[in-house]
């Protein structure tokens, strides 16, 4: 067994019955302990009023400050609440980065609807995690062009493409290579063959972030994707924790 920091960049709070997703502290902590995860970055995307979920996240972080880090979920369905909730999350709640979920508004995240969030994040050099592509996107959408525009307009934001580190998209890899503020995160239920290798070898090892999607997905399985893939041990350590620690300036 090797001893090095492991950070899960993508975990959720909340029960989601239709998918059997069960959320209890006991389940979270036992899954993390079994997998060898030190810290999980939590977000809660299941409420229209973002503050309700963010309060739950903050409660976990307060109770287990060495095990959880908070990510602020900001709902774009209520644009008037976005900045006040951001101020609360990065003030009294001590959140570390932002999670947005464009699926709920069916508006892609390069739309000006989100710009108040981005202006807030850009001023502070925060990271923002979002799916890179959406089910409502027309087939012609280019992820590369989407992020090219965002990076140009908001150069101090670090953009994390959720799930994009588990696939084998050449366009995603090129986006990561060309823009130094782009990261990919690894969780996926597909457990696709070769996904992590692709992200590391075709993209950049220093910008792949291990994530689990816990408790929708299992921590040990998601971690195993990194363990059994064909990259070096040093690259595995970067993916599993080093990159997240650097990105979020975590003190473990």
């Amino acid at each position: 067994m090797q001893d090095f920091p492991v950070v899960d960049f993508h975990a959720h709070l909340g029960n989601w019955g239709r998918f059997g997703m069960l959320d209890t502290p006991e389940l979270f902590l036992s899954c993390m302990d079994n997998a060898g995860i030190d810290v999980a970055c939590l977000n809660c995307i299941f409420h229209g009023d973002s503050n309700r979920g963010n309060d739950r996240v903050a409660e976990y972080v307060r109770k287990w400050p060495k095990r959880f880090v908070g990510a602020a979920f900001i709902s774009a369905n209520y644009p008037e609440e976005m900045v006040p909730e951001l101020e609360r999350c990065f003030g009294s709640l001590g959140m570390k980065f932002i999670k947005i979920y464009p699926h709920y508004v069916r508006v892609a995240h390069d739309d000006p609807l989100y710009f108040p969030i981005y202006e807030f994040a850009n001023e502070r050099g925060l990271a923002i995690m979002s799916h890179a592509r959406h089910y409502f996107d027309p087939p012609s959408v280019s992820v590369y062009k989407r992020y090219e525009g965002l990076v140009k307009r908001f150069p101090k934001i670090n953009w994390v493409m959720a799930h994009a580190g588990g696939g084998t998209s050449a366009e995603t890899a090129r986006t990561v290579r060309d823009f130094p503020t782009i990261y990919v995160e690894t969780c996926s239920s597909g457990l696709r063959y070769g996904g992590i290798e692709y992200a590391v070898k075709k993209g950049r090892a220093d910008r792949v972030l291990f994530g689990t999607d816990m408790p929708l997905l299992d921590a040990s399985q998601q971690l195993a994707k990194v363990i059994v893939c064909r990259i070096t041990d040093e690259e595995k350590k970067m993916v599993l924790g080093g990159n997240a620690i650097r990105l979020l300036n975590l003190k473990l």
Partner: protein
Amino acid sequence: MGKVDLNFKPAVPVFDANAELGRRHDRRNLMDTPEQLFAEMARAGVDRALVWHPNGAAYDSMEGNLILQELIHGDSRLVPQFFCNPSFDDFDVFTRSVKDAAVRSIRMVPQYQHYPFREWIVGPWLDWMEREGLALWLPATYTVFGDTTELDATDVYDTVREHPHLNVVLSEIHYSNISWAVPLLKSLPNVHVETSKLTIADPINRFLEFMDDSRILFGSRYPNSTMGIHIYALHHMGLPESTVRAICAGNLERLLGMG
């Protein structure tokens, strides 16, 4: 700091309950030869694999099963699983082929092959399988050309409960199938579950709350997924070694009459 095993090798024998072997017609698999399969098995520490050929679902089960046997070429590390289309295959010819090849398990994809999994179609076939002690694999979903067909849970429930001595393995249960799969497993003790798409948090311990470990089988869904992922995870879920041993190989051996 978290303890992670970068040099992991399985501590128990491993028998994969779900590996695809051979070329597909609808896309090129990353790996489709026996040599590539053996290399992956060696890398993951898998001793044997239950293999099926995709042609058996997409076109003709008899032809697919024949190609499968050619690919296996008598290598004992690969155990054949035959596809069956009970709405099309000739009963006498098919059952003879199973006997001749000493096959111990059958795979059906009713929705993809456009027949309902109902007693009036599959009943005689399931009666035969019960008599012969053959196990039945039912994938929850089957995808060809990017289109996915899904197993009808009510059909499975109604039909399988008429065959209490038939061992049925629900294969490739995804989190989107959990809402029906868990009640089904609770209702029918002759139904088992294969792990390849079982990716919900702490899946084995959660399933062990309502069923025993003899009904869970390790499967990888190779070549779509890496064999080693579930094996590593099974060793890092806080399970007793006896449970890991049963899931990784023992249960499949028993179902196939090899234990």
